[in-house]
């Protein structure tokens, strides 16, 4: 749980935005939407995994079963 996750997510976000623009310019619009979606899914997976771990620790900490 260190800080580089935030930088990774920001990098992926900017990367998908840039690739989307490039693909749009070379008139491949469907590829652009696909790459943006793929980037979003990757980021979502990372964040959901972190949230799951946080909820597990809180559940075990407060014995919230």
């Amino acid at each position, binding site marked *: *749980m*260190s*800080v580089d*996750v*935030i*930088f990774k*997510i*920001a990098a*992926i*976000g*900017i990367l*998908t*935005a840039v690739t989307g623009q490039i693909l749009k310019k070379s008139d491949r619009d469907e590829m652009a939407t696909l790459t*943006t979606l793929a*980037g*979003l899914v990757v*980021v*979502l997976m*990372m*964040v959901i995994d*972190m*949230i799951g*771990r*946080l*909820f597990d*620790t*809180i*559940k075990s*900490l*407060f*014995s*919230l079963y």
Partner: protein
Amino acid sequence: MDILKICAIGLISAIFALTVKQYKPEVAILISVSAAVIILFMVADYLVEAVTVITQLSERAGVDDALLSSILKIIGVGYLTEFSASVCEDAGNKSIGEKISFAGKVIILVVALPVLSAVIDIISEMLL
């Protein structure tokens, strides 16, 4: 001190969320959520310390286990609902956030009911 790191992480991720917002608003929200999770993880070990001290004190004071576990449950539910409600409001969905906090209040009420009835039983025994 950990608090310096936490403040730095919060500021940095706020700035990152702002920069990414113009390109990808949904990734900006995910950045703020991940920053919140990281900050909560840094606080988690202090929380574990506090909970263990509370349990030891309550054992020494003779508070029975059901009461203490419901108190901890209430704190946990409050903790989780506040976290997810603020994330939902951050994402612009105020109504979902309010529904989550309302559900949290209902759950806390249900958990607190047995404690209430225990107190009333004790009082009625004293009075009669």
